[in-house]
């Protein structure tokens, strides 16, 4: 049953290294961790003066779901303005509430997580780490 969690789209996201690693010169950076499981995510961004996220880097010590969520976040916001982060947050909230919505985009891959309360925080951690950099 929880097989469904590790379907191809999730595994592909987790293995997507395009935004993996720290940025050399981030304009904003933040780290959050989940003390319960020891997971830790750092999000770096390089933000243009008009608010556009020019580049994003993530450094994840965490599970597949956490890594996949970091990749999904990077894909959702790079090259976009600040509204993209809010949109990602809404999409993830919908998905983790089990709502299938065409607006979910890349986040739709996480729909099976909705049934696993113990894993919700794994998926949320990258967005928790990112929130301060986007609100800065």
């Amino acid at each position, binding site marked *: *049953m929880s097989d469904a969690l590790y379907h191809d789209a999730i595994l592909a996201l987790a293995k997507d290294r395009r935004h993996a690693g720290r940025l050399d010169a981030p304009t904003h950076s933040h780290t959050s961790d989940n*003390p*319960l499981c020891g997971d830790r995510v750092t999000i770096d961004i390089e933000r243009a003066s008009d608010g556009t996220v020019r580049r994003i880097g993530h450094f994840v010590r965490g599970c597949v779901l956490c890594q996949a969520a970091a990749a999904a976040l990077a894909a959702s916001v790079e090259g976009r303005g600040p509204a993209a982060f809010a949109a990602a947050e809404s999409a993830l909230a919908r998905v983790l509430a089990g709502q299938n919505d065409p607006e979910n985009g890349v986040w739709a891959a996480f729909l099976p997580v909705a049934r*696993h*309360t*113990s*894993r919700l925080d794994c998926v949320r951690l990258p967005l928790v780490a990112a929130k301060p950099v986007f609100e800065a």
Partner: protein
Amino acid sequence: MTQALRSQFPILTPSLAYLDSAATAQMPLAVLDAVRAFETSSRANVKRGVHRLAEAATDAYAAARSDVAAYLGVPPSEIVFTSGCTAALNLVAHSFGALMKPGDAVLLSALEHHSNLVPWQMLAARSGIELRFLDVDAEGRIDLSALETKLDARVKLVSLAHVSNVTGSVLDVASVVATAAKVGARVLLDGAQRAPHGPLDLKTLGVDFYAFGGHKVFAPHGVGVLWARRELLDAMPPFLGGGEMIAQVELAHSTWAAAPAKFEAGTPPIGAAIGLGAACRWLGTLPWAEIAATEARLCQRLLDGLAATPGVRVLGPQSLQARAPVVSFALEGTHPHDICQIMDSAGVALRGGHHCAQPLHKRFDLAGTTRASLALYSDDSDIDAFFAGLSKVRKILL
């Protein structure tokens, strides 16, 4: 209606008049079955596991917290599960006590249960906190006339029984809250004897802390509830240390999780908490106006019958006003143990002794009393059995 309720309690056979619910209330099938279902289909430790039993247990434990919160009208994140009412009161004495300074004071009353007295005596001895006491009037009520004079800025907490487990008197909470607010004192209610008699709306009550235990609200022993306002939970240091209540642990130093986890060290009483959640959910579905009317009518029968019995002295209000169905009495020339024993032989379960309220009994110059206490399953047959038993007691002992 009572018959339909009563049939949900397997222990309540026709030959048993259970009038000891203030000590421990009986458990309905809804609770028995919820606990058994947990133990046989989703038993696991909570919080840290991702396998299906652990997830089911964690979800059930969280749902129990929500069900208790709903019964009290507060957010689940303000509900701390403890191992009982006594443990909840000790938690406050330690964790809120740690915020107090020598010379600060706690205001109690002379009718408190030992569980709302001894923890404060221990705090006083530990930390130089002063204890002050409200007296009890002739009706067995906390005498609030001295409230203003006993409350000054040194009093940081007023901790009182919402309902007395001996006299059944109900506290005038609004007065206490209003007066305490003037000096900035927090108010804790020991709700052990109030919680079994219907849903509460703690936000409207206006208090700061509320404590009660599971076994008196038709749930298992070994679980209790402390509710406190969020800002207090955030401000108080933890009480017990261990697993689950931490954020980061190093050998020399640790940091704490956010409340309620901060106050729930170690594996919690999972099955009992799930039972308590089931009890609150079940209680939330009951016709409380009807139940309250029945409890009041039966209580009046007890009071009237006792008033008509020579040599009986009731320790508590004679009227139903601000009174819960807990009736303690002395019968001249008899000892509570003998009354209870003979009552038992007549199928009536009562409790005799000081009911963990020695100072109150001393105040009334009695070593003990005999107590009859009602719950939502009580009916006229119980009261009939009580008075038949009382005749027998008088015949044998007097």
